[in-house]
């Protein structure tokens, strides 16, 4: 689930501070943001499931002490591949279109890559042009379409990013 669009507010990009999930005091901030912006309802268990098991994959973006964006992820074995999964990505409306979401998600993906993930996946609503463009720029492909995936009846795309195999084996040599 992703939320992104074009409205803007006045701020310097250098004023945005990014922090890794730091504990229970961050949880209400994440929950507020996600509840506000995403269509799917999540229980407290879902949030805790992610942030307690993979705190290193969750990040928050702050502007002058106010939380304006967050990303929540997991990783694990999936059908013989070690796979990262981006569960939630939110930037509040006035701060969108300035690269905050890209920065948040890039940090998570980098952590996943360093942790040995072979690929990263997520789902996004087919109507969410902003999110689809963002992930497209990061190298994700639309691997599948999932019919009526969301509770609101909208289809989803399963997006996938495959990392290159670790060097040295390059076959064409």
């Amino acid at each position, binding site marked *: 689930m992703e939320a992104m669009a074009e409205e803007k507010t006045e701020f310097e990009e250098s004023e945005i501070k990014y922090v890794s999930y730091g504990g229970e005091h961050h949880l209400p901030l994440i929950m507020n943001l996600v509840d506000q912006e995403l269509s799917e309802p999540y229980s407290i268990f879902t949030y805790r499931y992610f942030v307690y098991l993979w705190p290193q994959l969750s990040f928050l973006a702050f502007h002058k002490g106010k939380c304006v964006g967050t990303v929540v992820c997991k990783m694990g074995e999936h059908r013989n591949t070690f796979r990262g999964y981006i569960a939630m990505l939110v930037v509040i409306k006035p701060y969108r279109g300035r690269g905050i979401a890209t920065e948040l998600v890039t940090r998570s993906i980098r952590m996943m890559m360093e942790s040995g993930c072979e690929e990263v996946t997520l789902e996004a609503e087919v109507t969410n042009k902003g999110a689809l463009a963002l992930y497209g720029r990061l*190298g994700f492909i639309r691997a599948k379409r999932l019919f009526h995936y969301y509770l609101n009846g909208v289809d989803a795309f399963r997006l996938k990013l495959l990392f290159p195999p670790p060097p040295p084996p390059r076959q064409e040599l």
Partner: protein
Amino acid sequence: MADNSVSEEATMDGHSPKLASIPAGDSTVWADASPLLQAACTGLRDGELIHGDNFNLFAAMSALEIMDPKMDSGIVCTYYSIDEAVENGAAPIPISLDSTIDVQRTIDIMDHLLACEAAWHKGHSLAQTVFSCIYLLRLDRTAPHALLHSYCRIMRATCKAVVSVVSDARTHEEEDLFTMTYGLPLNGDGDDKCLSMLNAVEETISRQLRACKAASSKRRLPEDLEPLQSNPNLEAGFCKALLCRLRFRKHFFHVLACMKRPQGRGLESASKHIASCMTELESILKSADFIRSCFGESCEGDIDDKTTASGHEPIGFDAMLNSRLSAPTPPRAIKILSWKKAVEYFVKLLHDLDVICSYPLDPHLESLLRFVVQFQKSQPDLVARSHLQLLLVQDGKLYGRDPFFAVITKAAALPEATKNHDIQKNESILQLGMLVMNLLKVLCTNAAWQRRKLGKFLQDWRVIYVQLELAFRNEFGEVSSSSNDENICMKIFQHILLWVEEQTYWIAFRFLILGFELELYSTSEYCMVYWYLYAVLTKLAEKTHLKMAVSYDTAKRKGKKKKDSPKDLARESRIPPAVLFLQCYICLAEGLTMMLASLRNEISVFQSPGPFNTEQEKFAQHFELLQRACIPDHVSYPSYKESTTHARFSTLAMYNYFKDAQRIAKEVKSSFSNDPDRLAELRKLEQVAEHNSVAQNLICRLGALDPSLRVSFELSHHPFFATVVVKRS
């Protein structure tokens, strides 16, 4: 906790002491868990989570927070039970003591039910749509109101018939919600009589209409008959509005029943009922003017958004009443279709069903596959697709009639006699029959699911090919002097092997082009997609051509052994139209690949270098299933790179593939003059080819020189061959 203490506590809470009825077993006793829970609570600090091994993401996602309206579907409701709703007068019978208002309200209920039914077909749950109707939930209560009762009863029987078609068809993920009927009173006694009840009511109202017409022309009433309602000025209008609604339900019920008859025997009658349904739907639409006029006051908001013809809120519906019946999921947002949209939905559904009914049950697999693909182009909804699937595959046979081995021998261009050959008992041949059957079923599912299954099928078809080849070698590898029967076996194997290959490439082709329909490809990936499409189409054309040559050869040898006439020779050397058709596709795919490649190489557009991976990883992901099944052989990322890295505007200028495509499309059209679908397709291809040919010339002349040139690729003329658009920015 002991039995009696449970019952005590339960009673203290004010609930009925039902728990007491659960006795302790031989090896179980009731125990008070409160101290344990208390201890666990004090042992945990705020925010800590007990994480069992079985508490996975699914468990976390399935957990619901009670009292949160976004999650707890039980909290947002007016009534806690149907009985409570009935007691509160939410669904009165009669609906009004004023007979005119009663009829008006009844029409509103009928209209809203139609809107609910359409919303259900479109993917919402039965419980929150049709069964939001309190009258339907307590159908027996409606018995004194013959009109409402008969309508509700046929409604329920119709829902049941539709549920059964969809669940029999097993259309996978779509059916989950659609066929979920848990806790709903779908199986009532006496629904078999719903048609006779409806007929009786229809008869009464048509007599009332006749009587009213007679009265207005001052003729004597033929019999003593109570009018429908008390206002003589509105009598005829109301009778007509009701009759078309009742008759629509009757014919629709007949349509469903006829279409279910085995071996397509009811299709002709179904077609007649479909025509009647269409006529009644027209009358229903026309009745809206009368209905609105007799209400006097106009309703608030846009009439086109309302779920009834009158624009009034119907009486007797509560969508939240059943919300606790739905599985433990958060409440789904329900948007009932407007009445106008619902009528449009049924027109579309009936049209789709009519297309199925008009299909002549062609035993040739090739034309059948083309029919299914063409049918899917109009994007039919679940109900129509389920009917098609049930018609195609019944009792493990095509149309419940032709065994799949016979279908395969026909498709593989084998002589008629081979369809009874013992070889059909061969294990691999049996499996092949299953594959064909599954292929037909999957082609009837929604495009998203279909593509995923087709991708997986590729592997199966590849495996069956290898198995058949092995069986073939085992049986005939060493034999030099063969008997006549062995000759036949050999021929069957040869033909079938060739056909399996052709079929496999056809599946691969479908898999690739469905990606366009589902919007899975971005423009920066078009180059590799068209390149792969080109590779698959080339093999498909090759196998098709070979199959046709072999079958022609067989047919010729089977016929009288005349000396080859010059006419025969000419026919033999001519490329068959079906292959030329594919050739046209090939030219377009190759032309687009080369144009995209040269644009990428010369002016660095349509590339998308990301921070984490390269085009090679995207290639691996998009074509993983094809690559794993070696479809086609020797096709890989390096071979893609090799054939595209050297493309330049100068090489593009040397050969215009689009011109070839245009020429072929023009030429081959005459061969398909009696096939309107393929003729239409050829016209589209010709258009794309013509556009792209001009665009290519422009790009070659100006591309590198004019930096203001903007090139884009749009699927405006054809679903998977893009039109190249060149603009100056």
